[in-house]
């Protein structure tokens, strides 16, 4: 059940939102779509589902051109960013909806709905209406509704955004397990890079309606194709400095050097002098905001070894940790 998009363009009333997307999701692959708010992630999913007409290009599922096919014929399941739960149906009925309308026997549908609900941890809420659920609970119901079927393509639009960390980790594992069991192409939109890195077989980074880079999490992480990808993936984002800036000798002139905060060493001898402007403690880690002359940089250090705000320190970077980008195009050099 490969899913492939060829030159897909989508416009919202004259204003083009997707500018020719090429994308292939292999059978049984989980592709995470990552991108800033407003990049066109939801629009991409809706185009695949057939809910938004494409103005140009082709969508095919399992080698079948579905561009002109109505949504119901594409055999996809979707979690809407807005959940789109039916307010008049209980959680159980919402989840079983797709089965019931496909004439799955009532008892079987109820049983499968119950199982799906239990998987996403809302088995105890089956009798409630959406109006009586908390935000995260609604999202789980929406997720269960998509998971209960076995479609060719799963389209999940930020399905975990309203869940807490623990549940999210659990859900990720469940999603991965489910995908392994059921197969089918899975397109998972998220803005959470951890989720993207952990979950994705590959990641597509979207920016302003264009695919900026596609690759495995490792590729995306270790060889970001552009400064945009480099900064977008990773939190705090990668530091970008001119090669002839405060940390010279790490890249050819006219390029930008990128250093992830974790690769910024602090306090060792012989480094570049830096001023600590602010320190944020995030559990075991601390984010240290540094001033290097006229430039700023962030370092991530274990919070036990963090400098105090206002202190002077020194910065060392090993050349192996440096990414080099063309200053003009932002492309990886």
């Amino acid at each position, binding site marked *: 059940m490969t899913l492939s998009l060829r030159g897909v363009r989508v416009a919202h009333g004259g204003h083009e939102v997707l500018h020719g997307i090429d994308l292939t999701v292999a059978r049984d692959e989980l592709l995470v779509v990552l991108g800033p708010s407003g990049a066109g992630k939801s629009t991409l999913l809706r185009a695949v589902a057939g809910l938004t007409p494409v103005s140009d290009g082709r969508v095919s599922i399992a080698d079948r051109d579905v561009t002109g096919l109505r949504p119901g014929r594409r055999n996809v399941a*979707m979690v*809407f960013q*807005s959940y*789109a739960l*039916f307010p*008049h149906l209980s959680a159980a009925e919402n989840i079983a*909806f797709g089965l019931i309308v496909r004439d799955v026997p009532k008892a079987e549908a109820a049983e499968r709905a119950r199982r799906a609900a239990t998987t996403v941890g809302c088995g105890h809420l089956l009798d409630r209406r*959406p109006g009586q659920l908390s935000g995260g609970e609604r999202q789980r119901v929406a997720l269960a509704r998509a998971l209960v079927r076995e479609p060719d393509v799963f389209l999940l639009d930020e399905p975990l955004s309203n869940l807490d960390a623990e549940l999210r980790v659990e859900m990720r594992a469940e999603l991965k397990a489910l995908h392994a069991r059921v197969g089918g192409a899975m397109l998972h939109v998220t803005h959470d890079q951890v989720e993207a890195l952990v979950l994705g077989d590959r990641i597509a980074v979207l920016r302003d309606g264009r695919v900026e880079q596609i690759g495995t999490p490792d590729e995306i992480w270790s060889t970001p194709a552009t400064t945009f990808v480099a900064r977008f993936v990773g939190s705090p984002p990668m530091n970008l400095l001119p090669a002839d800036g405060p940390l010279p000798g790490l890249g050819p002139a006219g390029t930008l050097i990128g250093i992830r905060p974790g690769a910024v060493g602090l306090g060792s001898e012989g480094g570049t002098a830096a001023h600590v402007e602010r320190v944020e403690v995030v559990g075991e880690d601390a984010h240290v905001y540094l001033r290097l002359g006229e430039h700023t940089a962030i370092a991530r250090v274990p919070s036990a070894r963090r400098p105090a705000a206002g202190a002077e320190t020194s910065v060392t970077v090993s050349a192996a940790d440096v990414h080099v980008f063309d200053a003009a195009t932002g492309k990886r050099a």
Partner: protein
Amino acid sequence: MRLRTIGAVAVIAVFLPPLLMLVAGSLREPGLPPPPGPQLVPDPLSTEGYTRAVDLGGLLRAGLNSTIVAVIAVPASVLVASLAGFAMTQVPRWLTNAVVVASLAALAAPATALLVPRFALFRTLGLTDTLAPLIAPALLATSPLYPLVFYLAFRAIPADLYDACRLEDLSPLRTWWRVAMPLVRPVTAAVAALTFVLTWSNFLDPLVYVYDRDLFTLPLALRSLSTLDPTNFPVFLAGAVLTTIPPLVVFALAQRHALRHFHLHQYRET
């Protein structure tokens, strides 16, 4: 909250008294010279008006006919209105516009302008002197207003819900039944109650299309009672009260069971 109760009481105080007068009048004893003005509590009280209204006006038979007509026409109207209203949200824009314009035009056509041509139509179909012409308006939902009301209600449902249905490959008919209808329950209740009242009080149609006394509906029977002598006015009023009771019940039911507050939008979608 308390303010609302005061408001409600005020509404009751304004709208109910005229109808109480109707009831009071119906409880006067027929045959007495009519009083110069209305009396709040008639003296002597008598229910003879009711007995005589039922006899004289043939209210039982007429009530049965009215009921038959309403039982068929009201559900049919709601069905036609909601189906059409839903279809209008799904068909191409130009068609929707055409239906809206045609509906408004139909709304503008006065009933008197339709009587004669319709009579010819029904006669050609051999339907005069049956109850069919009285049920026929159900074909256009009793009033073209109601498909439009449904259309607006269906249009206000968040598009995501329709999208979810499209993904599940639900046919329009099933989307209508399973998702759209449950979400506009207050509208359905209102339209059902209103079509009931319109059908129930339809006077001109039975006047023109029905000859046989056995097919008379309540408004005709009531009209006949209205020609009674002034001394028998209570009889007419009793008939009016009896005729008003079913719509009253329908309104009360509609407002109890369906016009409750309805949480449609309690989820992320604006």
